[in-house]
């Protein structure tokens, strides 16, 4: 295995574009090293992006939006009080991944690119309408997180493309996000169901809404039915029950070692209700 530590994302992209065999980018390594040890992958080329200037920075830009470098760890995100105040759902989602030790290494970008249908950060990123900066052989482009998952384990990135940063929109006023997941223990498990919700309100009325489910579909996506139900409404018990039904209907899970189809469908509805309530209270400044 060849191990590289390029000093720019362009160089990283170049190495990947020209590499023969199996190539992996290395940020925190909390997925790549596990797969390497389990002989699930045997990379011929491993490209470590952590030394690239800017990769470890969290920046709030002039317009209030956020630029999070590809090598920023979950622990660093949790320690950033302003980011945490504005996007608590996103930060909590990332924070839920693994243990304190995993948090010391894991990254948003790694979680996204690993392509697991049960990724924790992704429903929250997608609900926040995040996008990524992609550096590739044909230059740099911005790509919505929504357009990244293709199938379990696979994203829409092509050979030679590498993400340099995650872009989070400005929070603005009267906005709130939340992420909840169901796991059987208190920590450490892969999500049996995950739900990220992001809302904008005007008084009691919801003006924008994105609800994303994790671990219940082959790819994580926005539940459009939930947006339709929420936008223009006040969040009362009736709407919450409808949200639960919509989430359950949008779930097309499998039965596996972590949960059954029936269970996931049921709990998707429960989490959708609970996460929506928290996001709503946050948007309205009640939490």
């Amino acid at each position, binding site marked *: *295995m*060849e*191990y590289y*530590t390029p000093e720019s994302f362009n160089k990283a992209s170049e190495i990947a574009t020209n590499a023969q065999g199996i190539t992996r980018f*290395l940020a*925190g*390594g*909390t997925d790549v*090293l*596990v797969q*390497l*040890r*389990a002989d699930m992958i045997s990379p011929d080329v*491993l490209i*470590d992006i*952590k030394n690239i200037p800017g990769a470890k920075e969290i920046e709030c830009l002039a317009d209030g939006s956020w630029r999070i470098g590809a090598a920023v*760890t979950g*622990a660093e995100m949790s320690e950033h009080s302003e980011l945490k105040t504005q996007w608590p759902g996103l930060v909590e989602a990332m924070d839920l991944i*693994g*243990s*304190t*030790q*995993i948090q*010391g*290494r894991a990254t948003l970008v790694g979680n996204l690119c690993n392509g697991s249908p049960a990724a924790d950060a992704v429903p929250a990123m997608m609900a926040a309408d995040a996008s990524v900066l992609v550096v590739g052989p044909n230059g740099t482009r911005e790509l919505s997180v929504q357009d990244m998952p293709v199938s379990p384990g696979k994203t829409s990135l092509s050979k030679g493309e590498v993400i340099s940063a995650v872009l989070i929109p400005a929070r603005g006023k009267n906005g709130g996000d939340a992420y909840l997941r169901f796991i059987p223990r*208190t*920590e*450490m498990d892969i999500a049996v169901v995950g739900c990220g919700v992001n809302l904008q309100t005007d008084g009691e009325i919801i003006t924008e809404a994105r609800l994303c489910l994790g671990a219940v579909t082959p790819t994580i996506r926005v539940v459009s039915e939930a947006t339709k139900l929420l936008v223009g409404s006040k969040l009362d018990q009736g709407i919450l029950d409808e949200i639960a039904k919509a989430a359950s209907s949008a779930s097309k899970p499998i039965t596996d070692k972590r949960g059954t189809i029936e269970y996931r469908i049921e709990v998707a509805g429960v989490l959708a209700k609970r996460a929506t309530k928290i996001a709503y209270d946050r948007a309205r400044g009640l939490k």
Partner: protein
Amino acid sequence: MNKIHVSTTVNGDDTEFLCDPRETLLDCLRDELNLTGAKEGCGTGDCGACSVTLDDRLVCSCLVLGAEAEGKKIQTVEGIADGDQLHPLQKKFIEYAALQCGICTPGILVATKSLLEKNSNPTETEVRYWLAGNLCRCTGYDKIIRAIMDTATDMREAH
């Protein structure tokens, strides 16, 4: 065979070793540097027995490549005591029987020292959640948590 030459600092000492690119930091600590305090319990980042700090950040050394240690500062359980002076945590663990077989103890000590350096007054819940990634099969965690809470109190009062 192309080994990578790594220069790093371990427990305050300048250290060099050669490693295969696929070797983890845990492999290197144990097999190249003979620091067998960190243990491999799972190899997948689920048990925390391999915990070390990397530039003061608590990590699982089984999920870090040896090559990634280049230029970094690593602290292992062997570096917790100051010469023959045990850290208050180590003393309390012995006193409270916060260990039985002891295989998880190095990881828990490294993890806890890291916690107390960030938060000198953790609640029981904060301690338990900080240590969620450190599995213990012998103790049920009870005496470990008590030892940590009381050590934190002692350390605060000593200041």
